[in-house]
Every structure is written in structure tokens, then in C-alpha cells.
């Protein structure tokens, strides 16, 4: 296992470099002079002032040097300052990242809590009523835009029934119950699509395992269906499910961009959208860097989990 971890770590490092390079390159894809886009009031600067900015931001150096210096700063969490608030990008991000993390974790847990039992039931009663219902749900939910699910939830639980708040956010440490009341609908909106994918994956993985000879042997021994499915089938069907669960975290970040905007949640997703409209480029860059690195790290840990669950991966891959 240690060798596998080292090998995956060795692959992780170049990917991380490439991601940072792409985010760095984004800055130079800006139309006009990046120096104007990266500081407050940049549009109004004259040539002398621009020269100072370029020097401060190292934009007057050769490209590889610029990248190395930028990377060095990024690694020490210096991502520049927001053009609008003048605060450090890293400080802004750390405040918002926790909100997005909570939303993502809730959406992810919710999707797993629905999808895993439903997928197992659908797989173990193939062709039955439960299978039909879950399949219809899964096929439909994958095709639904998450934010539209959110709009419909707001309509039903906010506008018509008035049961739950539909806008804003309350910090967990201030009022845990109110925090959860605010997060329920966004988490459902975020988790529905993932639940559908996960359910399909769980069902098909379980069906594949249940068709194996050792399951037939277990049944022939007279084991109860429940013991066969949960004791022999489920643990082996878990492998591909873990991969999908890992990949879904990346989708959660993308989904958070829209869901946070819809529900007025002050997370990273809403911040990046606001930053785009305010032309606050350092914030956009910081958000993209953090989100992409987070996805990469989650994929890395998913691979490790997969290898830990399935020794064949460690030895082959």
C-alpha cells in the first residue's frame, strides 16, 4: 500500500503544477494589460503607475520567472487582494470555503443516504416495484437541473407551505438548528442529481456482483436473501460506488456555484459569480485554484480508498 500511495503522490504533483499553471495562464488571457485588471482602479492608471504595479506583481519579469514567483506566493497562501474589498483573497476564501464545505458535505451525505439503500433495494429486487420506482427517479433526476429542483423546492416549501427559509445563511456556531433549516433545501437541490447517479451505480454494481458464482453458492447453502445481499454482495459492490461518490464531490463544487446564488448563501460559489460581475479577477483566480485543487485532492483520496478496499488495484495499477 505504501508503494501505491507514493506512486499516486508522484502523479499528483505534476497534476497540481499543471492546474496552478492553467490558473496562472488565465491571468495572461485577460484582454488588455493584466496589471490593469489585477488592482483596484487599474483602468484609470497612467503608464508610470502601471509600471509600478507591474513591478510589484512581477509582471515585468520573463514568463517562467513570473510563474515561479506567483506559485511561491500561492503556496504561502498569498493570492493577492480583492479589487473590491481590498482584503486578502486568502482571507475572503477561508471565510467562504467553510460555508461551501458544509453545503457540499450535507448534499453529499443526503445523496448517499438516499441513493445507497435505494440502490441496494432496487438491485436485490430486480424487476420489482421498488426497482421500477427508483429507476424512474434515477433517470429523471439526472436530467433535472439542480437549480430548477431548488426553485421548485422554494415554491413548495417556501412560497406555498412557508415551512422553511429560502434565502440566506446562519452560521452553525451561532444557531445550529437555524443553520440546518437554512441548509435543508439547498442540500436537496445540490444532492438530487448525485443521488440519481449514485443509485444507478449502486444498483448495477450490486446486480453484477449478485450474478457471480459465489453468490449462487451462498444461496445454495440456504443463506437468507438479506444475508447474501448485505453480507456477500454489498461489500463487493461497494468498489465502483466509492469511485462515483468521490467524483461527485467535484460536481458538488460546480453545483454550489448555482445553488448558492439561488439561495443567497455566502459561499465560494456565490463569491465567484459576484466576482465575475464585479471584475474582481484575483477572487475569480483564487476560487478557481482552490476548487480545482480540492477536486484533485478528493480524487487522490478516492483512489487511495479504492486501493485500500481492493488490493488488486495496489498491485496492478
Amino acid at each position: 500500500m505504501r508503494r501505491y500511495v507514493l506512486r499516486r503522490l508522484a502523479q499528483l504533483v505534476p497534476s497540481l503544477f499543471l492546474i496552478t499553471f492553467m490558473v496562472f495562464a488565465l491571468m495572461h488571457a485577460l484582454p488588455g494589460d493584466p496589471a490593469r485588471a489585477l488592482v483596484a482602479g487599474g483602468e484609470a492608471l497612467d503608464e508610470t503607475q502601471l509600471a509600478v504595479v507591474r513591478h510589484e506583481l512581477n509582471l515585468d519579469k520573463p514568463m517562467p520567472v513570473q510563474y515561479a514567483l506567483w506559485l511561491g506566493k500561492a503556496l504561502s497562501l498569498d493570492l493577492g487582494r480583492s479589487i473590491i474589498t481590498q482584503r486578502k483573497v486568502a482571507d475572503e476564501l477561508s471565510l467562504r470555503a467553510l460555508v461551501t464545505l458544509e453545503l457540499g458535505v450535507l448534499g453529499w451525505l443526503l445523496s448517499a443516504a438516499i441513493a445507497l439503500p435505494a440502490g441496494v433495494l432496487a438491485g436485490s429486487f430486480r424487476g420489482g416495484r421498488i426497482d421500477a420506482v427508483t429507476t424512474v427517479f434515477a433517470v429523471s433526476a439526472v436530467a433535472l437541473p439542480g437549480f430548477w429542483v431548488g426553485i421548485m423546492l422554494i415554491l413548495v416549501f417556501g412560497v406555498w407551505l412557508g415551512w422553511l427559509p429560502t434565502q440566506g445563511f446562519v452560521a452553525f456556531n451561532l444557531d445550529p438548528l437555524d443553520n440546518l433549516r437554512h441548509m435543508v433545501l439547498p442540500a436537496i437541490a445540490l444532492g438530487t442529481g448525485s443521488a440519481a447517479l449514485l443509485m444507478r451505480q449502486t444498483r448495477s454494481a450490486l446486480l453484477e456482483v449478485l450474478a457471480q458464482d459465489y453468490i449462487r453458492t451462498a444461496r445454495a447453502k440456504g443463506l437468507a436473501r438479506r444475508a447474501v445481499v448485505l453480507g456477500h454482495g454489498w461489500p463487493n459492490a461497494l468498489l465502483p460506488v466509492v469511485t462515483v461518490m468521490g467524483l461527485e464531490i467535484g460536481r458538488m463544487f460546480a453545483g454550489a456555484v448555482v445553488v448558492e446564488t439561488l439561495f443567497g448563501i455566502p459561499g465560494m460559489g456565490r463569491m465567484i459569480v459576484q466576482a465575475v460581475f464585479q471584475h474582481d479577477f484575483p477572487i475569480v483566480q483564487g476560487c478557481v485554484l482552490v476548487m480545482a485543487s480540492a477536486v484533485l485532492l478528493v480524487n487522490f483520496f478516492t483512489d487511495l480508498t479504492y486501493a485500500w478496499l481492493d488490493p488488486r488495484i495496489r498491485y496492478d495499477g
Partner: protein
Amino acid sequence: MMGKALRRPLVIFAVLIIGLITIGAFGADWIMPFDPQDMDFDNLLAGASRAHPFGTDQMGRDTVSRLILGSQVALEVSVGAVGLGLLIGVPLGLVAVTLRGWVDDIIMRVMDAVVVFPSLLVAVALAAVMGNSLGTVIVAIGLANVPWLARIARSQALAVREMDFIAAADAGGARPLTIMFRHILPNSLAPLIVQATLGMGYAVLTEAALGFIGVGVQPPTPTWGNMLQAAFPMLDRQPLLSVAPGLAIFLLVLAFNLLGDALRDALDPRLRA
């Protein structure tokens, strides 16, 4: 086997939906019951009626006409983005297989890095750089498709390369590029077609999400996403305005997904979910 998979009622339903929306998009000028920009101040936020089956918006514009015009953007984005993804991704995958070695390593490592950027995030970042436009949306979703299509092209080409007829072509003196594009590519198409069809559904979803947050195609051009954005503040007064574009998105994405699944069953039974 192939015909059977494509003759299922759900597949016929999917083809019908895609066909109808395509006809609507191409024939919008003739089919739209009203001018989608025509305001009718006597009919603001009207509910369903015979004249306006999905009602009108806050400016009295007919929702059905705007949905029909919005289908143009949905199809342009889905075809454009997947087309761009294929155009860049497939040659990259094939070149990686043809040249092997460090070229293969570099291409695939770059793909691994690109894959961690969700298409929505790419689009938002590109909008910050390139501004809001249809082109930005197509490029962003297209770029996000590249690594998936490159990986599929590569793995498929790797499998086909080992087959006997490739060895025969090689022995016959065919050049590597000829082998790649004339022999390997045509035999690797099945999973690419499946992924492209599923990718179109995903592109429609992403475009709608971008329209909703205000990134992408801007009003007055109606898109299903920006229609939802405009309808949201009116949710308590006219819910129909928020329901209709959502249903349109749902139907088109569902149709692409059903067709993609059926093509998978028909073209490559090994990949069947």
C-alpha cells in the same frame, strides 16, 4: 440486436423530443405564435390560456414563443460544445496512441489536470476573461468535454490497435497516420458517439445553469436559463413562468440521455449499464 435496442418506446420518445425541438429551433420564425420580444402590457404575468398556453412574462411576452427561440441556443451550445470537444479530444487521444512514450504521458497528464475543472467553473472563469457570449459558453463546455473524449478515444484506439487487421495494414506498408485515421478511428467510434450524445445533455444542463446565474448569452436573446433567472423573482406571483423552461430543459436532457443509453446498448453491449 442493434435495431431492437433502438426500437424501444422510450427511444422513440427521445428521438421524437429531439426531433420536435430541432424542428422548433430551425423553424422558429414560422412556428412561434407571437414575436418573442413583443410586449403586451395588458397581459403581464398572465396564466395559461388558449392564446398563451404557458402564460406570459413580466413584460407580457409569450412564454411559448420564447421557449421556441430559446431552443436555438440550447441546441447550438450542445452541438457546438460537443463538436469542439470531439474536434480537440479525439485527435489528442489518437496522437497519444500513435506516438506513445512521452507524448502519450504528457497528453494524458494534461487531460488529468483539465478534468478537475468542472465545466461550470471553466465557463465562469472564461466569462471573467472573455466576457459573456454564446462563444464563451461553447468554448467552456467544449473544453471541459475534451479530457473525457480524449480518454475514451485513447482507450478505444489502444484496444483496436491490437487487432489482427491493424497488423495486416501495418504489414501492407500503410503509414501510421493512415492506419490511425482510416482503420483505428472508424472502429473506435461507438463509445465516442455514446459519450457525445450524453455530453449534449450535460451541455444543455450547464448552459441553463450559466444562463440562470447571468453568465453566458444575455437578454434580450431568450435562453431557457436566462428565462428562469428572469422568472425567479416572480415565483410567488406566476409559478408557471418558472415551471415551463425547467420542463423544456428536463425533456431535452432526458431525451439525450435516453438516446445515449440506447446507443450504448445498441453499439456496444459490453458497455451496457
